[in-house]
């Protein structure tokens, strides 16, 4: 007689016995005798077709019968037979082919979608099964995260390495005042879960790089580009083309924005529009050039709309169209786009077949600053000491007048970088000059300009007035 150990939950069918002695030449025979003796146990072990249920494993002593002769495994009579379920699972229900239906909570939540014929039950299930990667949880990422979560996208990945800064709050409405100093992915994910706890959120606390981009983006259906710099924008573009995933693109600058859908079906990619990046420093970032806080809201919401349409497969997407938005004059315009057959990434004979070094491609290293020579830089603390000693030198501030109004270093001379070439005569080439701007980038350009014009003793104050506020005088506001 072999001894069959009965799992706790099944003992209600075996008169509460925790083991049953059964005769039988094989495992199969022993199990059918067990079910003959205790008929109610049968449906727990076998399906309607009489096969062992998928989760049921049978062990003879320590051996899984799948590795013996399965149900024909012979029994001598002194064995212990164990019934062990296989157990697995995980949060990624949505990653599986969905038999999923909407729960009653979801039906109530999405009812205004469900009554739209273009969405309906099928469309809402598509949204629930969709996986979207958001690159950046900043200006564009804020409305994207809020609306994609609210719309019921099943799975959203957020890639961002940054923390929330006070200067973000004017436009990055997914973060609040209490979030200053928190990781943006944490702050954004919390807010999105508040809106819709059904959404699964994957957080990537990293910048997107050539090394990690393909791995991070591969599991997602659609990539939404909310980046603020050219190297990452080219990286996202190339990764999307290589992975054959649509890239929902948006960008913002001061009062103007753009949006389109790249790398979708036979449409163009970012490189078809801009084969080459602009020279480094030509286009200021939001931090340098400023941006109307509402602008990314507008563009991000357009991106969210395109994302939802791509998932639902309804309407006309922005493929082949670049939408231009001018907030100052409140105008929308459209440019036609075409895939460039000579495009190095998505053209007929691509030359870029793997991710490259995008910092190098865009001519930038360590942000946008040209590498300064040692000896041509000066620390704010040293500048302060020079001012205190009453040294004879010119502290040249090359920012714009409206920036000067916000914060300035006493004793500095303001000549905006753009006016500097025609106002060189206001400066003495023989005198010592320290250049200064907000963060050190523009003042480095000013330094180069002065040197080319015969100034012999010029240094750039590292970190600009921001570093001055950090290191010397915290009463000077940072902007």
């Amino acid at each position, binding site marked *: 007689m072999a001894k069959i150990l009965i799992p706790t939950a099944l003992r209600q069918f075996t008169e509460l016995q925790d083991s049953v002695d059964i005769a039988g030449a094989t495992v199969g025979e022993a199990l059918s005798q067990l079910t003959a003796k205790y008929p109610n146990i049968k*449906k727990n072990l076998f399906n309607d077709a009489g096969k062992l249920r998928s989760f049921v494993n049978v062990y003879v002593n320590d051996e899984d019968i799948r590795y013996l002769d399965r149900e024909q495994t012979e029994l001598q009579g002194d064995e212990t037979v164990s019934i062990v379920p296989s157990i697995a699972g995980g949060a990624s229900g949505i990653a599986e082919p969905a038999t999923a239906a909407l729960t009653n909570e979801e039906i109530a939540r999405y009812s205004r979608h469900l009554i739209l014929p273009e969405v309906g039950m099928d469309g809402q299930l598509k949204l629930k099964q969709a996986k979207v990667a958001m690159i950046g949880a900043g200006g564009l990422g804020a409305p994207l995260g809020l609306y994609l979560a609210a719309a019921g996208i099943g799975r959203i990945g957020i890639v961002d390495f940054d923390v929330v800064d006070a200067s973000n709050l004017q436009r990055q409405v997914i973060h609040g005042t209490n979030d200053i100093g928190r990781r943006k992915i944490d702050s954004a994910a919390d807010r999105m879960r508040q809106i819709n706890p059904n959404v699964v959120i994957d957080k990537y606390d990293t910048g997107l790089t050539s090394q990690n981009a393909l791995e991070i983006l591969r599991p997602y259906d659609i990539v939404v580009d909310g980046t603020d710099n050219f190297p990452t924008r080219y990286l996202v573009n190339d990764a999307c083309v290589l992975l054959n995933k649509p890239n929902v693109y948006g960008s913002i600058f001061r009062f103007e924005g753009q949006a389109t859908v790249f790398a979708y079906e036979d449409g163009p990619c970012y490189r078809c529009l801009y084969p080459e990046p602009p020279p480094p420093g030509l286009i200021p970032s939001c931090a340098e050039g400023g941006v109307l806080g509402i602008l990314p809201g507008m563009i991000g919401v357009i991106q969210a709309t395109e994302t939802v349409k791509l998932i639902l497969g309804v309407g006309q997407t922005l493929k082949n169209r670049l939408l231009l938005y001018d907030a100052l004059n409140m105008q929308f315009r459209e440019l036609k786009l075409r895939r460039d057959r000579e495009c190095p990434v998505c053209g007929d004979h691509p030359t870029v077949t793997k991710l490259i070094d995008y910092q190098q491609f865009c001519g930038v290293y360590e942000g946008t600053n040209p590498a300064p020579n040692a000896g041509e830089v000066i620390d704010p603390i040293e500048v302060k000491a020079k001012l205190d000693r009453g040294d004879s030198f010119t502290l040249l501030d090359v920012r714009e007048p409206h920036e000067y109004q916000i914060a300035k270093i006493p004793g500095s001379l303001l000549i905006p970088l753009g006016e500097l070439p025609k106002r060189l005569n206001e400066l003495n080439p023989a005198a010592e000059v320290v250049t200064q701007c907000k963060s050190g980038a523009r003042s480095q350009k000013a330094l180069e300009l002065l040197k080319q014009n015969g100034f012999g003793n010029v240094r750039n104050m590292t970190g600009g007035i921001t570093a001055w506020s950090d290191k010397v005088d915290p009463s000077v506001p940072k902007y």
Partner: protein
Amino acid sequence: MIVIETKPWQAMVLHAERVYPNECCGAMLGHQQGERKTVTEAIPLENSSEREQREHYEIKPEDLLAADRAARERGLDLIGIFHSHPDCDAYFSDTDLKNSCPWYSFVVLSVKNGKFDHGNSFIPDPDQTRADREDISWQKS
């Protein structure tokens, strides 16, 4: 109704927080009287999933067999399985359902930002088509 005593509850939460950002898993031992289950011991088990462990877990049958034996040796029953959902809620996902077994209570612990957030218990049906919620209570201390 499943009631988890202080010691096993602390062990489960600790295991879930330690394994974060991956999913953890383990077995719950105790006894059952009618519909009321009491967990007196929790055994952390290895997550043997070869998929991305942030969102998958798998318990080796031999580990479960060992847990079942441990229970019998101590005069206890194997009454449930626990696992964690890092950075999402403690729902019973399709993956959970399709790989479940109706004989056990399935306790899911939501761990957010590395800290336990909330927990739920479910009992799946034999055809793996639905899982009903089970009342759960745990004793913090």
